[in-house]
């Protein structure tokens, strides 16, 4: 089946944050209700950007940046959520298979079988997974964007686009076949370059084997706060690709070796015994 993806065009986005709300609306991330008694849990921190970070109930948030290239102010908006990498660090480290590649390419998530280990939190090059965690007991559950494939809330299987894409008024978000979106993204980048945005680029086409959320940007990714050339960390590779396989091999060989040893040693001892018995008799 053709891989699906989301194309985010930062040059079209007006940061109305419909996506931020629609994500919560659809995915029922409304358990937390601030009350007058416990105080509204959010404060203005000198910015339009809020809440301050992604959280187990905020899978998508808009970022606001003020930059002044050549003295003229620009207000840049950026979508922050799971990038649904092909080479996904989170999937690589997830011990339970709760994080897995959906047959349409993106990183789906089965919260029921999450063990709460927190490996994905540290392995994600984009710092996306967030946890609800009990500090003492370690009881935890991860949450992140599931590309609207949460069981029971699976829009993709139902044939609908993700909630964020659906709600985007200026069509800054598009959903479709990844190949087509790559082509569309490149077309838009060319148009931007023709307009004089010489640093325009399509982010996510190649990064980490290809992201399933791609960005049309009119400036360097770094200006938008995106990691330039994101990589799976050395620790992840050393751990998952070197040490774990070694562990499997060593563990396996040891068990096989011990079994072999048992058989040989037993046979020998029996033979010795027989010899002794024979000698005795």
């Amino acid at each position, binding site marked *: 089946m053709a891989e699906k993806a989301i194309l985010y065009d930062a040059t079209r986005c007006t940061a109305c944050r419909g996506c931020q709300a629609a994500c919560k609306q659809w995915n029922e991330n409304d358990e937390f209700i601030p009350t007058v008694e416990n105080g509204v849990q959010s404060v203005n921190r000198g910015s339009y950007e809020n809440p301050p970070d992604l959280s187990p109930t905020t899978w998508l948030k808009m970022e606001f940046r003020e930059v002044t290239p050549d003295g003229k102010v620009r207000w840049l908006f950026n979508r922050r959520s799971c990038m649904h990498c092909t080479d996904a660090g989170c999937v690589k480290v997830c011990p339970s298979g709760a994080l897995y590649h959906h047959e349409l390419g993106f990183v789906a998530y089965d919260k029921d079988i999450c*063990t709460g280990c927190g490996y994905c939190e540290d392995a994600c090059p984009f710092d996306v997974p967030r946890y609800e965690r009990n500090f003492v007991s370690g009881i935890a559950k991860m949450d992140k964007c599931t590309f609207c494939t949460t069981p029971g809330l699976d829009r993709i299987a139902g044939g609908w686009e993700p909630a964020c894409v659906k709600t985007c008024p200026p069509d800054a978000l598009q959903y479709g076949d990844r190949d087509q979106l790559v082509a569309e993204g490149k077309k838009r980048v060319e148009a931007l370059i023709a307009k004089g945005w010489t640093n325009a680029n399509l982010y996510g086409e190649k990064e980490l084997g290809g992201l399933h959320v791609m960005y049309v940007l009119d400036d360097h990714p770094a200006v938008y706060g995106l990691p330039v050339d994101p990589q799976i960390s050395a620790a992840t590779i050393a751990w998952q690709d070197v040490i774990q396989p070694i562990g499997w091999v060593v563990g396996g060989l040891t068990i096989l070796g011990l079994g072999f040893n*048992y058989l040989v040693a037993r046979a020998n001892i029996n033979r010795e015994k027989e010899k002794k018995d024979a000698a005795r008799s």
Partner: protein
Amino acid sequence: MQQEVEKYSKPTRILHWVHLVSFCILFLTGLVLFVPGLGVIAQDSWTRVIHRVAAVIFILAPIIYVPMNWKATLKGVKEAFSWSAADIGWLKAAPRYYFLGDETGMPPQGSMNTGQRLWWLIVLVSGVIFTITGLVMWFAKTTAPAAVLQWMVFFHDVAFIVAGTMLLLHIYLGLLHPLMTEAWKAIYKGTVSVEYAKKHHAKWYEEVTRGKEVKS
């Protein structure tokens, strides 16, 4: 009645068993994250709760033991780091010995033979690694940088592989190996037969019996 010598004191044996049980629990609750496909067993974090309870026991047990058995601790630690040319001889002779029961070339061993001392060293070192990396992962999960936490997992994992493998060996030798007939008894009852002691720990037997009457 066969003559017996005391191999392990009672506190040492208690420590061993407490540690063994907690480590086995730690091992198994860790193993579910290590083996793909077993991870589902760990869903909803219940293995982590057990892992943490066991970890507390695993760390507390030596902390209680050490001040109460200061001399034995010192001696033990010293032993873990006492290595000599004889150990090479043991390593050379070990395969023939463990597979064929052929004692040719096996140098006389102290309280712990080379293999046991290797295990003991690994227990000490990996124990420290487990404790440090585990505590960081437990208490600094939300504060430490991701890279630090990832390396903590890495070293926890390395220690897990090394210690886990050796644990299998240890259990195998203690329980199942046809020659290790009294190792079980040593750590269970605390004593071994003189015959076994002479045969397996000649050097140690000499040391403990020098100037002493052997109990009958």
